[in-house]
């Protein structure tokens, strides 16, 4: 089994310290987290982690089981890139005078779908939302024109096949959860165990 990029989606309670509990599952195994984002989810009071790592599926599956084992984790899923819709947001700060002077820059920015967020006399901040390759490309483009600052957000991802967590949560509220809640425990779904 070869390594590839997996996006892990974790539904959790909103609890201080949980970020650490989840992070150490990776660091303990010396696995690098490429990107991590925490946010609210479609369900009030339920938190959502989006974690990107590069690993084999076997390792990812085991990691997800370790994550789900945490008392305050409701559910963990993992998906490959084609199973999700995802975006990252990048911000670029460049000197305004360069953009003003060079027509080429304006065209390049337009080509990359960059949007100006702030325009000041001394600098301008652009944003691009997209995949990693797209946001990366613009760094190289802007470098010759005096890119002052660059930052990229963690990945956010929507699972294509998901019906959301509302229905699932109801199962968790019950004393005896139904099969919905424990689908991960269905090994006979083979390799797809953790996908929705």
């Amino acid at each position, binding site marked *: 089994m070869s390594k590839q990029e997996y996006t892990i989606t974790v539904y959790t309670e909103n609890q201080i*310290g949980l970020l650490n509990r989840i992070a150490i599952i990776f660091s303990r195994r010396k696995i690098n987290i490429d990107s991590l984002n925490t946010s609210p989810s479609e369900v009030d009071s339920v938190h959502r982690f989006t974690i990107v790592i590069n690993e084999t599926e076997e390792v990812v599956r085991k990691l997800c089981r370790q994550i789900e084992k945490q*008392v305050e984790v409701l559910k963990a899923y993992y998906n490959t890139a084609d199973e999700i819709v995802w975006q990252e947001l990048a911000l670029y700060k460049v000197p305004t005078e360069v953009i003003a002077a060079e027509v080429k820059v304006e065209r390049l920015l337009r080509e990359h779908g960059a949007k100006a967020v702030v325009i000041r006399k001394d600098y301008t901040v652009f944003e691009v939302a997209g995949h990693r390759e797209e946001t990366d490309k613009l760094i190289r483009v802007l470098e010759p024109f005096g890119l002052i600052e660059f930052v990229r957000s963690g990945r956010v991802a929507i699972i294509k096949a998901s019906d959301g967590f509302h229905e699932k949560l109801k199962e968790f509220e019950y004393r005896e959860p139904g099969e919905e*809640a*424990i689908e991960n*425990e269905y090994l006979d779904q083979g390799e797809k165990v953790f996908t929705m």
Partner: protein
Amino acid sequence: METLALQKEATTVQTTTTISGSEAVLKALLAEKVDTVFGYPGGAIMPIYDALYDYNDRLKHILVRHEQGAIHAAQGYARVSGKVGVVFATSGPGATNLVTGLADAMIDSTPVVCITGQVFAHLLGTDAFQETDVINITTPVTKWNYQVTDATEIPSVLAKAFYIAGSGRPGPVVIDITKNAQLQMFEYAGYKRCEHIRSYRPKPIVRKEYIQQAAQLINGAERPFIIFGQGVVLGKAEKEFLRFVEKSGIPAAWTIMGMGAIPTDHPLAAGMLGMHGNYGPNLLTNECDVLIAIGMRFDDRVTGRLDKYAKQAKIVHLDIDPAEIDKNVKTAVPVWGDCKETLPLLTELIEQKVYPQWLQRFKDCQAKEDQKVIQNELHPAGDVMTMGEVLRNLNELTNGEAIIVTDVGQHQMVACRYAKMNNTRSNVTSGGLGTMGFALPAAIGAAYGDPSRTTVAIIGDGGFQMTLQELGTIMQFKPNVKIMILNNQFLGMVRQWQELFHQRRYSFVDITSPDFVQVAKGFGIPGQSVSDRKDLRSALETMINADGSYLLEVMVGKENNVFPMVPQGRGVAEIVLGSDEV
């Protein structure tokens, strides 16, 4: 409307009382039927100790001599009683002293709840006196932890703590309570035990189709083999397990943690697995056709080299923790669930069978091990005493009824190899972490966990010196603990490895000891030391029959080795019976 609301308010007011956070802690313990707490006071937990002053009649508190002793004692208590062990410790050094025990309880799935004091909430993060980040230090070694900064949370948080520690796959929980929360007065509306947390599923749902598949595999097997771990004990499923074993007719071997779940003398008992386990169960793991693993986690000390482990076998794995399935060893049939539920379902579906030829293989292996190892160990020809003969004599005196608490090293392996156990919850040892210094405090806890039984702590001369200050606890509170030091004047297990794998380069394993009998005497504990075989039996009798605690030191051979052995990095079938084979 208004009057209704007022009435309602009035009734709630009636049912609450104003108490401090500290008192709420003690009320929670009583509601959870805790009878014994192991602890040590300090600045940040003083309000709880102050409240304890008035609860002394209802709650026994054992003042240990080091917080590590408190948590090991709580572990011993939990392992023997099946209840949750409870610890009090102060902030900073008090809490950090718990870490070894937490790691031990985590890896051996022992239910303990540790309550640590913490500095005032407004001082958190200021490097206040005796402030440490207990939550983050203990996160990797707890099943759950939580910091309380407001007293109103105490009842519900403690209810969660006990529920989480004791349910599903048990484990340690730390509740860190800031001093202001301990002191805070609040309206207490009673204690409600926790029975459900929506994000926590202690037991996976049992799937009948897997039970059926497992039964099919078992019924079609010619050389089936059961290996079991502490899961059987933690699931309180010893009866269900015995019925399964007896109906199936399948030989059953235990991991060190599973020992005692069935009587060690049972006709189908196949002995111990693992690095220093018995010859047959290790060797035949690689000959069986169906391997039924119950409540065990395929630790590397059990499997040896994984790519040479049971490759020929179809594996059925029963476990309550979904993360254990396929973690180390790929299973053919995963039976997820509490074995108290899954075993009866499986027993129902399997055929009553016997496997005379297959059992004969185990007997043949046993005979070979007897001849090459056990005979010399239990009945040595030379003058030098062996640990094995001490165990044989002990067995004859206790008839397998004692609780055996072991430390870590050669004596641990020998004790677990040779001790007889008729009852479950008789074996208390640090299996997963291998914590030297575990035995003495754990034995104190065990003695409180079941005072009706004899507790024997078997300890090496090295390990005893790690926590011997707990003799002070014995002196003061008088639990009945029989302490047996098997003194080989070496850090024996490390010396054995240096002999076998490092060309006898004995690097810092030569350890000198104080006069242990004199030390015990200083703590008011009687004892004696024997170095001659002719005195052994009567010394053991004196120890067992002593009114209270007793320390017996037995001088054993300095350079005896524990065999058989699966050398590290080799497969279970490459188990060796003597140093000539290493």
